[in-house]
């Protein structure tokens, strides 16, 4: 399948990302070793110049990876189901071989890691003395690892797709609902406690983000809980009301135009909320070294965390309530 236009584009983009990040890591090694804030040597000047290159490249790769995630989602949701037999949506496409789902996870984690680095970079750039400078570059190593993993997994995943072999789509996923996999335990879990937990964690998240400035660890943990519950409930509860079908527990059909691409909105809201609460946590640890006021930044992050989770909860609830009150 490597001759497919969409796949060529993504592989090309991933290759570029790997090359650029290799360059970046290679260039950042001297910074990690020789950075000395007090020194006025020629080496230090050279290293300072180098930081511009690194932050520019990471910014570029970050935006490319966001677009690449979008491209990947379009590929598995809309493009590939046509050419793989039996696959009706991304569930079937991603499960044609074992590399599908790990690839999706790695792409999501990579976005979070880039966001973390860019945030550190941004905070560092506001200061005249670059207090975070040598240390923030340690984040480049996980980023590089993720990009390489992403590249290799993409190659394996796309090259191992055989259009002739029948994929097992939802028809199989539903009938083996008692599978041990975490997203298929729906049959055994009662929905009501989960729903209560979902709304409770949402309320706690909002309260802790707004009122407990000192304890971002708490809100980050709550945010993790909220996100997991949200994805679980979206898959097993809310999608039914989005599709209007009681038996259709497919997580990926919401990315289709038939449902107004609502999946893109829901998942970006969720991811923005998660990233913002993670950054609030980061902010607490770097705050001491910063001289510029961090209050406006914190405000933005708080707004991001609250608005993202609210948007998600509101949209899901509207679908649900709409269905209840219609009947």
């Amino acid at each position, binding site marked *: 399948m*490597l*001759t*497919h*236009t*969409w796949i*060529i*584009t993504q592989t*090309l*983009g991933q290759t*570029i990302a790997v*090359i*650029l990040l290799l*360059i970046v890591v290679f260039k950042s090694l001297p910074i990690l070793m020789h950075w000395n804030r007090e020194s006025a040597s020629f080496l230090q000047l050279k290293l300072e*110049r180098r930081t*511009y*290159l690194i932050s*520019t*490249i990471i910014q*570029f790769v970050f935006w*490319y990876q966001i*677009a*690449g995630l*979008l*491209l990947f989602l*379009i590929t598995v949701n*809309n*493009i590939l189901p*046509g*050419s793989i*037999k039996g696959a009706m949506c991304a569930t079937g496409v991603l499960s044609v071989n074992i590399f599908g789902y790990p690839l999706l996870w790695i792409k999501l984690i990579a976005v979070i890691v880039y966001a973390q680095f860019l945030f550190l970079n941004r905070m560092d750039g506001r200061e005249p003395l670059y207090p975070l400078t040598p240390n923030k570059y340690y984040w480049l190593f996980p980023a590089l690892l993720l990009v390489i993993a992403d590249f290799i997994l993409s190659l394996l995943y796309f090259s191992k797709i055989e*259009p002739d072999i029948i994929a097992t789509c939802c028809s199989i996923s539903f009938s083996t609902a008692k599978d041990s996999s975490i997203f298929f335990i729906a049959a055994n879990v009662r929905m009501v406690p989960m729903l209560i937990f979902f709304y409770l964690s949402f309320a706690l998240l909002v309260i802790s983000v707004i009122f407990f400035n000192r304890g971002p660890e708490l809100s980050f943990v709550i945010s993790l809980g909220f996100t997991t519950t949200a994805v679980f409930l979206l898959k097993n509860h809310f999608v039914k009301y989005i599709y209007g079908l009681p038996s259709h527990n497919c997580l990926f059909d919401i990315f289709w135009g038939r449902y107004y691409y609502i999946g893109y909105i829901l998942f970006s809201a969720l991811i923005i909320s998660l990233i913002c609460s993670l950054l609030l946590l980061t902010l607490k640890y770097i705050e001491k070294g910063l001289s510029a006021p961090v209050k406006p930044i914190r405000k933005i992050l708080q707004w991001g965390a609250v608005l993202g989770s609210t948007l998600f909860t509101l949209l899901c609830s509207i679908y649900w309530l709409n269905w209840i009150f219609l009947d």
Partner: protein
Amino acid sequence: MNRWLNILDYAIISLLRRRRKQIALVVIYTLVVAFFASVIFFTGALRQEAVYVLSDLPELWVQRLAGGRLVPIAQSKIDSIAVIRGVKRVLPRLWGYYYDSPSGAVFTITGSDSLPKGLKLLDAAIGGGLDSNQVFCGSGFPETHFTGLGQQLGLIDYKGCLHSFEIVGRFSSQSDLLTRDLIILSPSAARKILGIAKNNYTDLAVEVWNPDEAETVGRKIDRLFPSVRVVTSAQLRSTYEALFSHRGGIFIYGALISLFSFLILAWDRASGLSREERQELGILKGIGWQISDVLWMKFWEGAVISLTSTICGLVLAYLHVFYLNAPLLRPFLIGWSVLYPEYRLQPAFAFSEVLLIVMLAVVPFIAATIIPAWRGAVTDPAEVMQNG
């Protein structure tokens, strides 16, 4: 906002100052983008057409093989397939190829006695079924033989005897993509021309009650009758999905190589700063531009070039495929055909396709110009002014 516009201003003015170099770059870039955008548009539109047009067909197609060749299928087999549970209807087909020596073209002959009512694209003189001396035909035969509705059409049967038919219906040239080479005869006449014995058919189309059961029914037919091949309509459509995705991909590889060679040009252009350019950057640094400002200025230069060329390439590709009917791509499909359809494709507008093209065009260019831009941005003002 103002600061951004100022930097963009400067970037554009400095591009315009060196316009002779840049125009060549933009032209080549536009052509490269136009080439692969054409491939993507063309294949996307063809695929859309195939999926839509072939969506109402029966679910299963049954053919008989003997010695690896297709052979006619007997009436008795139709009867025994029709009683399989789940089968709604068995529709026998009579079809084959006809080489027309005067024009050198190959036509497709189909036998049909169904009433052609309610077909907008068929210009028919009769309302009922076909008599044994009447035909419907696509636009191909009348065009190569300079005949038309109401005139005669001569076909030579497999024994060598000439038969004459009256053209009583003609498909509009709008449906060329489907009917260009068709000649539709009554079943008895089709048998005579194709040399198929009575009670025999070329192959069968099988309708099933529940489309989800098509595979199961197909497997059952396959087991019950040795030497039979079953093709499902899903496979039929996936044939058209695969169309071009193979060589279409190779086209893209070709385009990528031209893109790479072009990128080397861009890289070279961006990194080999002339003396004036170095001096200019030195002066900018000297009058107080930050490294990040210069970097942004260089970035905007690249962005202006690549965005302009991508948009121009998209427009060019669109005109090429949908207004000029892809004169550079169609010959590959037509090959040595004497008769080929003059189709006009319906644009399949997909935001995702445009996103794909933009990613393919803009990302490598920006990536190739980042490092040279940084090299320029860290130029030491004092050094440049002394040596320059």
